[in-house]
């Protein structure tokens, strides 16, 4: 009886330390990993020479001013307005090239929002020009 008990105690391997390690690893991966993968928006840079190859009627210049309004051919639009969105859809349907220029004071987030809006309207021919100091 005594011998049997001793043999049983020797065979017993505790898995508690293993579970501890696995739990720590699990916590590490749960807290440090992210599923929010980074995306990208593609833009083409506006080279000065390239504009001359296009007809003027096909190039639409958008200027995002310091107040966050978009100026197209002298007319100011609020970027959330239906007029502006309609305008973008018209450019998309006619396959116009859109060149975006921004005020140097505007935040990058605002610029990205505008590019996003232009892309969503279906305009694929989009170029970004250098910022304009006001």
């Amino acid at each position: 009886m005594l011998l049997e008990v001793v043999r049983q105690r020797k065979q017993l391997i505790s898995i508690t330390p293993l579970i501890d390690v696995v739990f720590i690893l699990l916590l590490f991966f749960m807290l440090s990993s992210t599923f929010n993968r980074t995306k990208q928006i593609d833009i083409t840079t506006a080279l000065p020479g390239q504009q001359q190859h296009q007809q003027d009627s096909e190039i639409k210049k958008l200027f995002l001013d310091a107040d966050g309004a978009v100026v197209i051919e002298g007319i100011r639009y609020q970027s959330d307005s239906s007029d502006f969105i309609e305008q973008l859809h018209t450019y998309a349907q006619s396959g116009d090239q859109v060149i975006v220029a921004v005020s140097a004071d505007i935040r990058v987030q605002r610029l990205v929002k505008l590019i996003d809006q232009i892309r969503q309207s279906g305009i694929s021919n989009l170029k970004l020009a250098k910022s304009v100091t006001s």
Partner: protein
Amino acid sequence: MKLLDINHNSARKNKLDDSMIPAINIVFLLLIFFMLAGQIEARSELLQIPVSSSKTALSETRVEIKIDANGRYFVNDQTVEGSLSEHLGKFVLTAETAIICHVHRDLPASALDPVLAIVGQLGIQQLSIATANQS
């Protein structure tokens, strides 16, 4: 009497260990899931990329430019000392080279000007801006 107690305790412990096995299996499965599906990213308050609704996944590129909240430029995680064009001169850039720019969202748009100028000089037409998913 004492020996019997030891035997009884040992059996109880064995039973407890056995009942833990399904829980350990689940923990292992969760561990494997997070190891495979999760991505470990360095998060910094100094570089919070703008938010967009773009669905295009970030592609691999040879040249990655980062502009942090302090306006410092990094090319492939190396700090740019001096001008950005000199630093980019170390890389063999062609018109087909894709450049991805991670820029802090609260910076003024003029922070992108040096990048646009170089990209224009080198004839590179494709520039991508890294964005985060809208949540």
